[in-house]
């Protein structure tokens, strides 16, 4: 390996690391607010890339149908579950949010997709289709378990992951896609050729991180989300509608996932099930940082990206193994450092 290759690998690693950072901070966010370890975060990424690809081809993306299916399922389940306790306001919200919105988006996309309106439209439509999925999934799978243990929530999360991968295969097929870069072209930097898209990924990642920081540190809503995570009863007593904080966290997760997917689609080929590995690497980063700190998670994600990139060069057959095995020493170190009763604190 010479210097140029090392730099090239570093570039690759940093870009992938940025994507893993977006996944990692999302996992930290969702866990902090809902205690859900959101395994299916990667699905949002894959689905966003697949949606952009379908729109570029002028076809109706599977996500448009999926959203409608999720909306109907969620509304139906809530009617069954709540029955007589439903208020008129809730029913109106359900009609609007779960049925009318997905149906409207589906009609819009059937009408507009063949016109091939270009990059900006594709990105906006992808966000519009993906973001509502976050709160829908939360209501469908996690809200009924709001008081369950972290382990039960994790099991639900894994179940949702498998269900979504299955749905992904049905709605998108097994073919891989690669999208047009939002930013095309390259520029030389010393011995390297850098893609503008790579710079775009980095800039967007940094902006998302700054945005999250500002949201949680500076806004009442962000603080309310944190407060709900710290003390749910306390949050209820000051009038925070705690049921909606989970929906907001999941909407943010879907939004960040969609942004990641829009970015990554042009960098690598994405299949219906590509989300899992991306999600898992973000998860490794989040775990290294103790599912706790945003900046540490981003740093760990960078490390994961670099490690993956170099191990792909030296031992490509083992690159995933190498990446995932770094979690072991971290877990051992954490459990030694924290003693036996620490888990309880982290759940509280």
């Amino acid at each position, binding site marked *: 390996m010479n210097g140029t290759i090392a730099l090239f690998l570093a570039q690759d690693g940093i870009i992938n690391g940025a994507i893993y950072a977006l996944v990692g901070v999302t996992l930290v966010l969702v866990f902090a607010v809902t205690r859900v370890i959101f395994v299916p975060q990667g699905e949002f990424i894959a689905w966003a890339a697949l949606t952009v690809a379908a729109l570029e081809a002028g076809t109706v993306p599977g996500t448009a149908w999926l959203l409608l299916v999720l909306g109907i399922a969620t509304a139906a389940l809530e009617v069954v579950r709540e029955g007589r306790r439903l208020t008129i306001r809730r029913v109106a919200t359900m009609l609007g949010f779960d049925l009318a919105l997905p149906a409207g988006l589906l009609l819009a996309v059937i009408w507009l997709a063949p016109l091939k309106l270009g990059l900006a439209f594709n990105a906006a439509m992808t966000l519009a289709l993906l973001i509502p999925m976050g709160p829908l999934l939360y209501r469908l799978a996690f809200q009924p378990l709001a008081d369950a243990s972290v382990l039960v929530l994790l099991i639900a999360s894994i179940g949702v992951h498998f269900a979504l991968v299955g749905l992904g295969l049905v709605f998108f097929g097994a073919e891989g896609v690669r999208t047009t870069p939002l930013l095309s072209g390259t520029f030389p930097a010393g011995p390297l050729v850098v893609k503008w898209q790579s710079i775009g990924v980095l800039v967007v990642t940094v902006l998302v991180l700054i945005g999250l920081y500002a949201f949680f540190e500076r806004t*009442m809503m962000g603080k309310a989300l*944190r407060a709900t995570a710290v003390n749910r009863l306390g949050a209820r007593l000051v009038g925070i509608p705690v049921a909606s904080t989970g929906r907001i966290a999941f909407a943010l997760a879907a939004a960040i996932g969609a942004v990641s997917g829009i970015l990554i689609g042009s960098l690598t080929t994405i299949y219906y099930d590509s989300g899992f590995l991306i999600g898992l690497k973000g998860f490794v980063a989040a775990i290294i940082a103790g599912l706790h700190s945003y900046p540490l998670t981003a740093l760990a994600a960078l490390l994961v990206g670099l490690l993956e990139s170099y191990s792909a060069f030296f031992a490509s057959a083992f690159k995933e193994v190498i990446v995932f095995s770094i979690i072991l020493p971290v877990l051992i170190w954490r459990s030694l450092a924290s003693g036996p009763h620490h888990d309880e604190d982290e759940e509280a």
Partner: protein
Amino acid sequence: MSGPILSVANLSVSYGRVEAVRNVSLEIAEGSIVTVIGANGAGKTTLMNAIMGVLPSTGDITLDGKLLGRSLVEERVNTGLCLVPEKRELFSTMSVEDNLRLGAYRFGSGAVADGFRDVFARFPRLEERRRQEAGTLSGGERQMLAMGRALMSKPRLLMLDEPSLGLAPLIVKEIFHIVTDLSKAGVSILVVEQNARAALQVADHAYVMELGAFTMNGPAAALAADKGVIESYLGLGGGKHN
């Protein structure tokens, strides 16, 4: 004088098959201090939680002439009801300032500066500690923060569950002094106490709770002079709960 700010009629609360509060009725006149005294396990906390909407109950709870029905906790907060719970339920990893700020959640950030001024005037200690994490406060400071956070929501009826619990006598005095001040400022107050002596001193009206039901009620001064009450709640037996 207007009607009662809160009236509770035939309220019952159960934990599974165990009825912890049975058929309780209570009224709080606007601007007054009402106390419910009773031994540990009598059902005082359960009663408060039911009024706040944290626990489901049967019977009628009327705030300002409006039936609360099945309304959610956040809706009750928005109508001016506020509970300072027995366990304080602070946001322990957040700063004192952020705890207070979240108390004003129902008004949004616009009301924060105003609320800070009022709360810091009543609790200067909180201003000194405004950047400190809530979890690092002393017991008395935690109670002050819990009350300050409640005041940020500008409650019309403030419910205090055992405000003196675990506090040194001097701080108990300070807390009850602030309760009287609040009442003078027009806030109606329902305070629940094992420390009956302190509660009866500040209250206008008092209820005695035993095994989930009210056994007695009347003007606080009259109850403080009642032989039965003195024996059960104000004698040595009552004092040891402090």
